């Protein structure tokens, strides 16, 4: 529980062992107030902007369109922020603002093509039904047209086979697979095709990352930043728990690893604080934007305390680093995961 108002719920990492995260364990990140209620009969989705013929669809019309499913690991850009040093402002997430679910609904592409995309189209902006207090800038962001036209970018109505929950954007949300969570808009009601990126707080200065890493704690000039897109390479240890006392000869070290638009090719485990590393076994479940489960059978020789580390490598050659890149908003924290345990042999 990071906040009730606005609702920000984190999943304990010990629960992140399944390939598909159950909806009622799936993290929730709200920037604003969730809509008080949604009238599914009255709900409309408008598609406008740089299109030949603007469209308005009812929920019934949307659900009649051809469905496509994508299993996607959704992670908040600020996941792990509390571990940044020096500390940065924002929701102080531990490591559990992440989950993997199967999202279904029409491809955004099919909706955009129905409306007819003009040559001037460069970005696609999403507006949700969340309500904004005071003079807070609305949570409005856009994604480049190339990503919007990827068949796997969805206007999802279902999550793990059931209609979306209110917490996760009922009745429809976008899913921009492999990208930071903020690129996917909940309680979707309006899609606007733009001839340039959307403006506003949540495009700039929000959700931007330094072009080159600077010194921790030093400010970064806005012109030396870029908008966040795909997630980075990362693994986490779901078992054993940090601080656990372990009894017996053999222990399963387990967890998940993901890399946004790339594939996980390797997860390594160290049980001596990083002096030596051994490959974990990757799980059988596999999908383009989904995390991989991994496990490692560990037979400690003697009793004592141990530091267990995990690090992932992806198909782009990126390796999870010992220290994450510090940045003023604490995005994309991806240092080795670490748990300390005491073993009784």
């Amino acid at each position, binding site marked *: 529980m*990071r906040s009730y108002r606005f609702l920000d719920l984190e999943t304990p990492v010990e629960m992140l062992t399944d390939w598909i995260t159950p909806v009622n364990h799936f993290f929730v990140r709200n920037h604003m107030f969730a809509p008080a209620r949604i009238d599914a009969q009255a709900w409309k989705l408008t598609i406008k902007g740089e299109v030949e013929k603007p469209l308005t669809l009812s929920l019934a019309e949307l659900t009649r369109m051809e469905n496509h499913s994508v299993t996607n690991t959704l992670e908040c850009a600020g996941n792990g922020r509390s571990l940044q040093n020096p500390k*940065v402002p924002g929701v102080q997430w531990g490591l559990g603002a992440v989950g993997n679910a199967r999202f279904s609904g029409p491809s955004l592409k099919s909706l955009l093509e129905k409306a007819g995309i003009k040559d001037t189209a460069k970005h696609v902006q999403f507006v949700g039904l969340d309500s904004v*207090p005071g003079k807070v800038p609305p949570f409005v962001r856009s994604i480049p047209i190339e990503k919007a036209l990827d068949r796997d970018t969805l206007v999802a109505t279902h999550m793990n086979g059931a209609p979306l929950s209110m917490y996760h954007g009922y009745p429809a949300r976008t899913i921009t697979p492999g990208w930071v969570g903020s690129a996917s808009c909940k309680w979707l009601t309006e899609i606007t095709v733009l001839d340039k990126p959307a403006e506003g707080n949540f495009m700039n200065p929000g959700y931007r990352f330094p072009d080159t890493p600077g010194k921790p704690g030093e400010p970064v000039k806005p012109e030396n930043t870029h908008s966040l897109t795909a997630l980075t390479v990362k693994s986490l240890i779901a078992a054993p728990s940090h601080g656990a006392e372990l009894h017996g000869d053999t222990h399963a070290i387990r967890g998940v690893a993901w890399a946004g638009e790339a594939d996980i090719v390797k997860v390594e485990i160290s049980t001596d604080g990083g002096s030596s590393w051994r490959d974990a076994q990757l799980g059988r479940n596999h999908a383009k934007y989904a995390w991989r489960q991994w496990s490692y059978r560990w037979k400690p020789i003697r009793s004592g305390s141990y530091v267990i580390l995990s690090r992932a490598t992806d198909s782009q050659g990126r390796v999870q680093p010992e220290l994450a890149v510090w940045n003023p908003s604490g995005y994309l924290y991806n240092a080795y995961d670490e748990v300390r345990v005491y073993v009784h042999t």
Partner: protein
Amino acid sequence: MYTLRLDFRARAIVSVGTVVLFAAIVVFSQSSREEPLPAGAGKDKAEDACLSCHEARIIVQQRLNKAAWTKEVDKMIKWGAEVDARDRDTLIDYFSANFSPDKPAFEAPRTVAARKEKAK
């Protein structure tokens, strides 16, 4: 008639009881859900200016220096927090004193981060 009066009284007792119970639930859930702000000059102003839009927990989990708190307070004023010009510095001082980087990490109840911190 007699039974009707009894019914009325019974209903009154039940409805008063319901109100008391409901009030107790509201008070209990407020106190158990929402983090209190620490005492000090600026507490009342912080409650008035901040808590109409978000709960205190989002404040008490931060660990920021004075420069960062100044940025946050000014951002929130720009975003509609009603802060009298005379109170801005009081608020910045209050937050900087209570939620500075040298304070121990905020323990969000029932989270792994809290347990990790404790286990160290």
